[in-house]
């Protein structure tokens, strides 16, 4: 388990992380790398406390600041930093030179087998494939049996094959070692796929934390929703609330919507309404009067996405629909957008 309370250079984060993968998610400049560097001991925060298991790594008040080599963190920086002047085998030997010779050789052999690096072992990093380099980075970080693995995902995207390999390795690390992993990433899919827990970081603060599915479904604030790339955020006023029939009415700028009862909200509250683009229903508009929760909207742009088409309407409404549903109507300009009541969330 790791607890960190760090204040440095305007970074102020406080969290606990257990076993499994915890994702530090945030935009560039949010302080993800700074947080990892502070835990690894590469920089000293101005104040705060970092505890790994029961060991204090850093404590501003009592001036404890363990050097990186005594922190037992495996740190995979975004540069990977495989030593270019050593073979892969020597890279693996580097962290374990203090061990007895037999143990050293056993561990290196085991790691080479586990990461299928036997053939590449005598070669230098420059002479092997990126996938082998990636495996070696992980093998080197794990060979010293760290208590915590810190990962800084390279920000300038990995190519698809490398990313798949990366996810495979992480999944194996999670299943085989049960090691706590703290991973900085800017990729929401990675969080969703791998992390059991995520911390939403922005401008040096933790905005929200929890399992990725929950964070994505229930952003705690507008800032959190914007960071998560959630579209369809509308300012609304609650004009009716009925807990008995589980209904409510929301007044937006140009129209009103019927929604479910929102616990903890009061009549007259100004709230942010949020709808996932995939949950809106859209169809062509035939000129008749829109029914309840339907809004006529003009299509401004249709953007091709890998698995769907994203329709952007006037009034900042965004809807995702399947490509086959869009193809026959792609010249249609006037659309009818339906907001299903159960899809409405308020922040």
């Amino acid at each position, binding site marked *: 388990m790791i607890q960190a309370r760090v204040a440095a250079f305007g970074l102020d984060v406080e969290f606990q992380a257990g076993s499994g993968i915890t994702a530090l998610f945030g935009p560039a400049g949010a302080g993800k790398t700074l947080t990892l560097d502070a835990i*690894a*001991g*590469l920089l000293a925060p101005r104040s705060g406390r970092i505890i790994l298991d029961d060991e204090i790594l850093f404590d501003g008040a009592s001036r404890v600041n363990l*050097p*990186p*080599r005594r*922190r037992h*963190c*495996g*740190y995979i*920086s975004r*540069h990977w*930093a495989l*030593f*270019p*002047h050593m073979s892969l085998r020597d890279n693996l030997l*580097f*962290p374990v030179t*203090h061990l007895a010779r037999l143990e050293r050789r056993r561990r290196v052999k085991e790691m080479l087998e586990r990461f299928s690096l036997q053939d590449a072992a005598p070669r230098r990093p420059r002479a092997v494939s990126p996938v082998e380099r990636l495996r070696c980075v992980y093998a*080197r*970080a794990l060979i*010293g049996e760290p208590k915590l693995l810190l990962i800084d995902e390279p920000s300038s995207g990995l190519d698809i094959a490398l990313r798949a390999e990366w996810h495979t390795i992480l999944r194996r690390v999670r299943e085989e070692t049960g090691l706590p992993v703290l991973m900085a990433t800017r990729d929401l899919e990675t969080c969703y796929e791998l992390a059991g827990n995520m911390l939403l970081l922005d401008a040096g603060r933790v905005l929200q934390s929890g399992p990725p599915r929950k964070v994505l479904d229930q952003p705690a604030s507008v800032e959190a929703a914007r960071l998560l790339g959630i579209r369809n955020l509308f300012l609304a006023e609650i004009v009716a609330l009925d807990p008995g029939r589980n209904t409510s009415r929301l007044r937006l700028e140009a129209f009103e919507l019927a929604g479910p009862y929102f616990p903890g909200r009061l009549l007259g509250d100004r709230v942010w309404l949020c709808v996932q683009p995939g949950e809106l229903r859209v169809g062509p508009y035939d000129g008749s009067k829109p029914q309840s929760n339907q809004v006529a909207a003009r299509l401004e742009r249709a953007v091709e996405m890998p698995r769907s088409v994203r329709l952007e309407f006037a009034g900042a409404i965004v809807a995702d629909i399947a490509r086959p549903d869009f193809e026959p109507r792609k010249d249609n300009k006037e659309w009818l957008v339906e907001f299903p009541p159960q899809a409405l969330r308020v922040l």
Partner: protein
Amino acid sequence: MSLDPLWLTLRYAGLSTLFCIPPGMLLAYVLARREFPGRDILDATASLPLALPPAVLVYYLLSALRRWPLAFSWRRALALSTIYTLPLLMRMSRAALAAVDHSFEDAARGLGASEWRVFWRITTPLAWRGLLAAILAGLARAMADFGITAILVIRYRDAAPDTAETIALLLLIGAAVLAALYAGNRLQRGRAPA
């Protein structure tokens, strides 16, 4: 023609360069990698001999040692040559060390290496071309300084110096200096991308 002055030059320039290496490297490392108060002053002081004319430097040093008027001694010449070569070697080594990507050193620290080990196993091997080039430049500097002065002094102590032979010796020294500088440049240009 006697080549003795040439061997003498090589020997003394080599020795003074050797003497320069430990303090030069230490200073270079400290200045390239450590933050501490007074760093810029240390930097300027260590580079001072590079900026002062040699004559002024000699005058200062001999005055400080109370060895005035000038009396030639090989030991003193060696000390002077060392001091004079140090800043060049230091500055070039510092540039070479500073060019090493921090992330390799940080990775090594994270993997449990002490600062000593990081220096010997990571920083030095990654900077070796630049460091060797610095040593060669230092050698060239020492050869030029020491050699030319020594030859002229030795020659003109004789009543009737052989001008042609003196010029030949000076040319040989010049060629040796050129060779050292050329080798250093080639080394640095051969640096592979990290």
